[in-house]
């Protein structure tokens, strides 16, 4: 049982790290603001989400698990809102595209 949970942790956290890598590379390499925004949201939602998912089996108590899920939910909410707001600024700042 604990081995299976450890495998879940390793797979999920590695997946999360991969999406952070993808998000960071996208943020650095993509040509304009809106495509970079696209890359950012991957790291926000999937990267952190998978890391939270991976940490859940290791949580010491139900309360710790709930806190982890709350962190993810807050980041999802913040990410969804902020990407809207940033897109608004990007549209004002530069040519669309």
């Amino acid at each position: 049982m604990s081995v299976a949970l450890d495998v879940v942790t390793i797979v999920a956290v590695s997946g999360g790290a991969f999406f952070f890598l993808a998000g960071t590379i996208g943020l650095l390499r993509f040509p304009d603001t809106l495509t970079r925004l696209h890359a950012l949201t991957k790291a926000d939602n999937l990267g952190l989400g998978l890391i939270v998912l991976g940490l859940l089996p290791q949580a010491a108590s139900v309360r710790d698990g709930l806190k982890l899920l709350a962190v993810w939910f807050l980041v999802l909410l913040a990410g969804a809102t902020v990407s809207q707001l940033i897109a608004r600024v990007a549209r004002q700042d530069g040519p669309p595209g």
Partner: protein
Amino acid sequence: MTIATTYEVLLAVMVLGLAVWIVAARETFAAAEGFVAYGLLLPLIWVRLGSVDVALAEAAIGGGLGGVLLLSAAARLRSTEMAVAAARPGRTLHLTAAIFSAIVALSLVAVVLFLPEPAPTLAPTAVENSAATGLGNPVTNVLMAFRAMDTLLEKVVLLLALVGIWSLAPEQLWGGRPGPRHEADPRGVLAFLARLLCPLGIVIGLYVLWAGADYPGGAFQGGTILAAMWLLVMMAGLTDAPEIIRRWVRLTLVAGPGVFLVVGLGGLLLGNAFLAYPAAYAKPLIVAIEIAMTLTVAATLGLLMAGPPERRV
């Protein structure tokens, strides 16, 4: 170099890189954006140093309210920037300042390298006396009992800063509402965020206050989170800032220091000293002070961020 040290060096280099950028950036607004990132990285250092209480405070202030304050100010002052930047001091002053700052930094480096061994610590004393209050969090013990006077005066300082800001209002606007009225878009993304985030944030703020008795957290950290939620609702235009002349505003602002003072004077009358808690009631009294403090901190920080009164209606 161990792995842990490598990480610490990486973190320190990141923070210092941002600090250089904040000092050197051409545009103030960009520097303020760097300061937000700086404020988001500092809590990592504090957790690494084992000071989770401080990490919470730094996250709430540095990553949250402080960044908002400086970003908004930078945006409002953007038009003046080029003119003021032209007044850069001469090369001699830059060189002198660089040498002076380097000397200060190097002396501090020497201080760090030659700190006394073994390190002096008050931790054993704090643990020995923790039974007197019944609280499990040593930092809360220090804040609320062993150095209660500091904490009382710190809240008075917050209040004085607010009085200072309010006194910047033009005579005819005294007693009015602080800051501009934020335009509401009830179907917009900001109103959506405020409606969803605010209840959650209030729960988390109260949780941080409640946890503060035995685990990292406390009145200031919880109050800062509540202040941020209030500010969010104001920025979304869902509610307006209160007129500062209102009695409930004034009462909330003095509630924390007021309760603290009353308990302190009670200690003088019943016990043996100012701010001495009667042993049997130490914990309930401290919790009562902390609850009043949280409300006061939330109100004070919210109004500090809102600025001086700008409107009568």
